[in-house]
């Protein structure tokens, strides 16, 4: 079920989900539900707007990884828009930056061609 706390806007054919400033165990399930709901709708890409996100703990990382895996299974690409700071740091430490394409703005994330970054059938 979609959670009203995480607004979804459409940028052309690409849905953009705005992630909260802090993602942790208290809100991870709601964000995850919103993303999985979008996954079922057959878009080529889904963008998670984390440009306002300052804090993302393990529960938050699990949301990203879950959405990414679902995307691999369903044939769409999950992308993250990240402005820097702690989020890009933690994605580098965990290796998530090697499977989820990252962009510095929502616009870039929306307009990018499908990268195949997370598709391991094409090597990584």
């Amino acid at each position, binding site marked *: 079920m979609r959670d009203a706390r995480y607004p979804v806007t459409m940028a052309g054919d690409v849905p953009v989900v705005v992630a909260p400033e*802090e993602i*942790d*165990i208290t809100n991870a399930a709601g964000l995850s539900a919103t993303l999985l709901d979008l996954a079922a709708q057959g878009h080529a890409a889904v963008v998670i707007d984390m440009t306002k996100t*300052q*804090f993302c*703990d*393990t*529960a938050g*990382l*699990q949301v990203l*990884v*879950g959405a990414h895996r679902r995307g691999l299974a369903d044939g769409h690409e999950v992308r993250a828009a990240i402005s820097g*700071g*702690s989020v890009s*740091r*933690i994605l*580098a*430490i*965990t*290796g*998530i930056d*090697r*499977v989820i394409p990252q962009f510095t703005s929502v616009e870039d994330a929306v307009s990018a061609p499908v990268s195949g970054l*997370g598709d*391991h059938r094409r090597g*990584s």
Partner: protein
Amino acid sequence: MEGRLRDIQSITDAQMSELDDQEFLVELLERLKAILQADTAAVLLLDFRSGQLIATAASGLEEEVRQGVRIPVGRGFAGRIAVEQKPVILDHVDHTTVLNPILWQKGIRSMIGVPLLAGGRVLGVLHIGSLTPRQFTGRDATLLQLAADRAAMVVQSTQSRADRMAVTALQRSLIPSALPTVAGAELAARYVPGSGIVGGDWYDVFTLPSGELGLVMGDVAGSGLPAAVIMGRMRSALRAYALETRDPAEVLDKLDRKMQHFEPDAMATVLYAVADPGLERIRVSLAGHFPPIVACPGEAAKPADIATGMLIGLAPDARRHTTTLNLAPGTLLCFFTDGLIERPGELIDEGLARLCQAVAAAPAETACARVMGAVIGREAARDDIALLMLRRRPSGDDHA
């Protein structure tokens, strides 16, 4: 209606709080049966792992519980209530409306059921049946929902109490009660569960048949019993791979493959390191985990320069690297989980810097106490914290 409301009060009276979960539900069902002049009553509770409703308590329908009836969410009468999350009235009971043959074989003609809800989440379903045809009303549904809300409260508090006890017991059994004694090494550790919800942090230290020392630091995503169970499985699997494989990166790759196959939804960060006997060298591999902080005598502590590796459960066939660190006598390594450095409203690098400042090449136990004092102080940590210090004894320090 007022009389019936009074009746429902009897369901919440004090003597019922003395009963255990099962007795409470049976007593509740018996009272409901009497109030509604019905013939059968049953509660099915949701098993989250299987997505099935399991018959847990019954009155006039005891065989449901004895036969362990299971109804998938979304199917049949009970399954429909769980999905719709609202009362359902059934005037016609047969195999087209009800999945469980016990109900129509029993001769139940009319049924009404309501969800057990807590915080918007379905915990189970309560249903009442009549052997004679009758029209259950909206008033019946309101009354039943009141009783179900009360039941949901009791069930939830029992479940969370049972979960908490199980998690604590698991944690206790999985965190080493004593660290091994190793010639030339000092070890010290802390484990502090987060406030409220216990997560899946763990550490492990063991000697290997080669005389080497294995060190593990890990953090399973999630919380409560599910995370603790995954943590226990990862800990055992890692120990098994450590016995047959010398290279830490290969141990983590095997662990990852095992987890992705058997626990495809699990995600964890893990560090595995193997120290030579005598601690001249340590080989470290990372699966999405923070590198240890290194403190050489007389130098400022800093994160070890170690290749990052993908976390467990991220991508099939991920390959990790092993980095070898040479440890001068007196060098201290500080292994930790993210709870120690991550704070809302603060950059990770600020947390890391604070930790580096607190770490010094002191005896392991002293270093542990100093870090906990400086980084945690008096505030309760939101997340779990695990901390493990390993120090190579300074030359000439012969204390065992």
